[in-house]
């Protein structure tokens, strides 16, 4: 019996377990990308909404090319990187795949991290489209600071992806319910952000994490930061804090809510 026990519970160090779980979170991300990229709520929120909002904000207004591209990039990244996260848990609960997944040797944190990776990649890939468009149509390649834009997209995509996990905390099996909640939270954040205009230090602007990403993209496309001399550091700092705060908060809340999903 002891031999079986030793063989069965082949002891791994904490670091080995950490990397095991990290690798497994990539498997979750691959699965999410394969399954959810063409799901209705993801397509509507990730592709249709940015186009519609862009037309609503820009058409008929005299806006400089940098603000058009930074505003569009910001909106696309925010909406795409937050489109998969809220859908996965209710969708998997409804499809009855979540229970099977939970009984696999992965923690809830691994599942959530996998969701973050997939949302992160989705956001990164789609946000490059308006940037390429800007470079080709408006010649922004002359003024672009690739490093700032690259880091901004990476960090913001992580931050918004983590944020999106919170939106799927309510233990529902109806994706439409979380989509309503998502719209109620995401749209006000878009509306209070100074998209397609210069950054102002209005308190309501500072509430939205999009404002900090927008400031970074503006700076990356040749404008100066709207938050002063240390503006870029502030932008990166706020986005990182925002991302990690929501990541750990989602670990905690989903851990609690998981029990309610399988109640009775």
């Amino acid at each position: 019996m002891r031999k079986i026990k030793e063989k069965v519970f082949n002891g791994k160090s904490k670091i080995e377990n950490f990397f095991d779980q990290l690798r497994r979170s990539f498997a979750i991300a691959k699965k999410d990308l394969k399954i959810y990229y063409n799901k209705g709520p993801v397509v509507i929120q990730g592709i249709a909404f940015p186009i519609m909002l862009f037309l609503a904000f820009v058409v008929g207004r005299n806006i400089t090319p940098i603000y058009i591209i930074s505003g569009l990039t910001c909106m696309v990244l925010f909406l795409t990187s937050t489109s998969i996260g809220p859908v996965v848990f209710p969708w998997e609960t409804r499809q009855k795949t979540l229970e099977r997944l939970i009984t696999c040797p992965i923690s809830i944190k691994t599942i959530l991290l996998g969701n973050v990776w997939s949302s992160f990649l989705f956001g990164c890939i789609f946000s490059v489209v308006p940037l390429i468009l800007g470079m080709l149509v408006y010649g922004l390649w002359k003024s672009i600071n690739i490093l700032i834009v690259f880091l901004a997209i990476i960090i913001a995509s992580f931050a918004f992806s983590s944020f999106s996990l919170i939106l799927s905390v309510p233990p529902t099996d109806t994706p439409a319910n979380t989509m309503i909640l998502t719209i109620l939270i995401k749209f006000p954040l878009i509306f209070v952000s100074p998209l397609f205009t210069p950054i102002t230090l209005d308190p309501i602007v500072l509430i939205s994490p999009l404002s900090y990403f927008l400031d970074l993209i503006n700076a990356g496309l040749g404008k100066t930061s709207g938050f002063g001399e240390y503006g870029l550091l502030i932008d990166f700092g706020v986005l990182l804090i925002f991302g990690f705060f929501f990541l750990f908060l989602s670990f905690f809340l989903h851990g609690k809510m998981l029990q309610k999903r399988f109640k009775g």
Partner: protein
Amino acid sequence: MYQSDIIEVQNLSKHFDLLKAVDDITFSVEQGEIFGFLGPNGAGKTTTIRMLTGVLKPTSGIIKFYGQDAWKNQIAVKQIISNVPEMANAYLDLTGFQNLTFIGEIYGISRNERKKRADDLLKKFELYKRKDDLAKKYSKGMKQRLLLCMALMSNPKILFLDEPTSGLDVQSSIIIKNLIKQYNKDGMTIFLTTHNMDVANELCDRIAIINKGNLIRLDTPENLRAIEKKYQAIDLYPSEQLIISEVERLAGIEKVKKIKNYYHIIVDDLHEAMYQIIDYTKLKKINIKKLNTPEPTLEEVFVKIINSGEKN
């Protein structure tokens, strides 16, 4: 704990607010056995399996796998077990093959090995020809076989099956039952929940009967069958209608049910009931056309045990 017990459950309870879904149950599962967990719908079977597989945290009690606390060693325990939940589904937007390789990746199986295992399992479960079809195009029986393949990808030491043949066609049901027997023969311990006494009787080495969250009996099928003999019945074909309430008042008789042209009489004491029925029909001048004493169905015995609420 016996040397061969690999699952130990001690005083396990799960309460959902005021509802006691599982109430203080204790049992153990031995290495290499098929352990049946039998009970009517809502008895607490699924809640128990969810606690054993780490989905639900027990309100109180202990679950040990190989002597290790299951809740404290969740990842290590989950690495050696596998589960097919009752209402589970494969990923319908992935192919059969992708479903298996995904599970293989989650269990940390190397790329080549998971492809090999996936192919082997798909062949064994007669799904290989459809391996590149999306799971949503599979029939219900094929989906259930795919779920079993997913559960077997990791070569688990303990396999949990929640109602594995429920709602399946006869062919799929037979394939699954045969494979369960075969994997068990190869050394896999199987924990099976079902509300079907025949499935439990055919597959299980021991059967635990649970009702309203309480474990009311745990025994081998042979011993349970011996208990069944207590619960006998008489099929009576009279020449005229009987008054059921009167017959039910006779000594040795528990319940009377009219079925087409005969009466199915469940009895406590067969001999006493026979005498009483003969006396009663003589008194009422009713002829007995035919009288059988059929063996009770397993279903009847199960209901009887459940209703009697006997505690082990």
